[in-house]
């Protein structure tokens, strides 16, 4: 079994940080992450980011971030897989430490969405789709999700309101997350009366994009300082699976096949079943993605994940808690950094440091990040180190 542990975590509040540049946000997460890991100095920093090239005209973040944040000289590269970038960078760090060649690796997710006006930055996100055959037709990530939702309603003969449980759960959980962008619960009535943006889709079906930075320090357990002062979490499964980039290149767009395969592989590596996890930090960039992810992972049959939400099974006390700190919907969606936030949040649950959102006795977490509509799926299994 792998001996890669999470020795430290950090996160900045998610939001619109006009005062902070990408390098400032990154430095905050780097320094806080090192402190949480008892001062460990990483030899590598793998940076998850999607938008800096287009929105901030900035590439080679490995060099920029390392030299600005006190990590002069370390190995540094950017890892990109659209919305799955954070999970993908963690996978690279996991492999590096597993190789025995790297002792201490930092995973840094950072996204600076607000360096352009919202509409322009949102347009930049179209690069995560097929530029020749999707974005060029006027489609957007939001319209991809809406197309999936519309077909879901048709195939399973359900109404749009059946998705209400996902944003309600996310916002309820975000209310107690000090790093969340939105900290107010919403009511079912508010959801049902919300403005439709991409029919059948309303404004609560899409997570808000925002700025943020989060970090993980991975190492072998024998390297963690003895006085680190918190529990350790082991990574026991890790997997990246791709599907076609364009939705139209799939036989069954509702299947989220890569999401399912990625769960299978990570769980098989960890020697567990998905049902053995105490929480499932899935990708809820859109309500429909949460539903399709639950179905792809086998927690519900096709067309029935919304029932889990209606029955309270996705809540903190349910059988498969999701978005336990608010998810992208409530915490905010800092795109390339989102996967790192998800891993940080799951690690805090397993360390017993999730505050009011703590799942009692949580020992195992499934964490999945998606690039596009599961064009890329990255899954990690985290387990509390006893």
């Amino acid at each position, binding site marked *: 079994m792998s001996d890669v542990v999470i020795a430290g975590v950090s996160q900045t509040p998610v939001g619109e940080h006009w005062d902070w540049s990408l390098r400032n946000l990154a430095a905050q997460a780097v320094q806080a992450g090192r402190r949480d890991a008892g001062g460990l100095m990483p030899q590598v920093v793998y940076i998850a980011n999607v938008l800096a090239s287009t929105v901030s005209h900035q590439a080679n973040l490995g060099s920029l971030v390392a030299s600005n944040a006190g990590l002069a000289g370390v190995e540094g590269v950017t890892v990109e897989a659209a919305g799955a970038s954070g999970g993908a960078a963690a996978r690279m760090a996991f492999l590096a430490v597993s190789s025995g060649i790297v002792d201490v690796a930092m995973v840094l997710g950072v996204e600076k969405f607000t360096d352009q006006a919202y509409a322009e930055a949102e347009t930049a996100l179209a690069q995560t789709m097929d530029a020749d055959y999707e974005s060029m037709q006027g489609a957007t990530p939001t319209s991809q999700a809406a*197309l999936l939702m519309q077909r879901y309603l048709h195939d399973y003969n359900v109404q749009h309101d059946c998705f209400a449980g996902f944003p309600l759960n996310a916002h309820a959980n975000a209310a107690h997350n000090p790093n969340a962008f939105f900290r107010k619960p919403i009511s079912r009535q508010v959801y049902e009366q919300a403005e439709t943006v*991409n029919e059948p889709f309303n404004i609560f079906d899409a997570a808000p994009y925002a700025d943020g930075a989060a970090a993980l320090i991975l190492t072998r357990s024998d390297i963690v300082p003895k006085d680190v002062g918190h529990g350790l979490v082991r990574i026991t499964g890790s997997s990246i699976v791709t599907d076609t980039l364009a939705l139209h290149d799939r036989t069954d767009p509702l299947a989220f096949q890569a999401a399912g395969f990625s769960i299978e592989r990570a769980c098989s590596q960890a020697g567990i079943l998905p049902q053995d996890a105490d929480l499932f930090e899935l990708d809820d960039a859109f309500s429909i993605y949460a539903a399709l992810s639950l179905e792809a992972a086998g927690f519900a049959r096709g067309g029935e994940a919304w029932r889990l939400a209606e029955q309270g099974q996705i809540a903190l006390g349910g059988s498969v808690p999701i978005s336990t700190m608010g998810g992208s919907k409530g915490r905010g969606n800092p795109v390339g950094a989102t996967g790192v936030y998800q891993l940080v949040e799951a690690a805090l649950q397993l360390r017993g440091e999730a505050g009011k959102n703590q799942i009692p006795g949580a020992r195992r977490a499934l964490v999945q990040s998606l690039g596009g509509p599961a064009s890329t799926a990255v899954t990690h299994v985290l387990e509390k180190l006893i």
Partner: protein
Amino acid sequence: MEVPRHWRLRQQRYALVGEVCPHCDAKLFPPRDVCPHCGQEARTRFTFSGRGEVYSYTHMSDAPAGFEQNAPYTVALVKLEEGPLVTAQLTDLDGKPVEIGMPVEMVTRRIRSDDGEKGILVYGYKFRPVLAGPR
């Protein structure tokens, strides 16, 4: 200026030229370098009929850059009668409600203005409801 790119895609855009796999006979649109069904190279051209039906659709009120003039518009996944799905706008709806399963056919329309004023107009496929009469 992205002239090379638009020029390279002109056959797909104007005439739905995809491929038929010479090994397993799968019809592919958009074209791919390797046939996803049998794993062999796919390089034989195949022109699609342009007929199909709506697989899914969404009405968009916010348009991304380059598409502001079109908004609001309808984006659909169209299932071509030869098999593949394609992402495209619906047009000539004239207030007609869109439904999954609705028969549509390909037409050529302006799909975007590239790079604002200094740019070029890009034409390509959209789909409209099938007009009355025999197919």
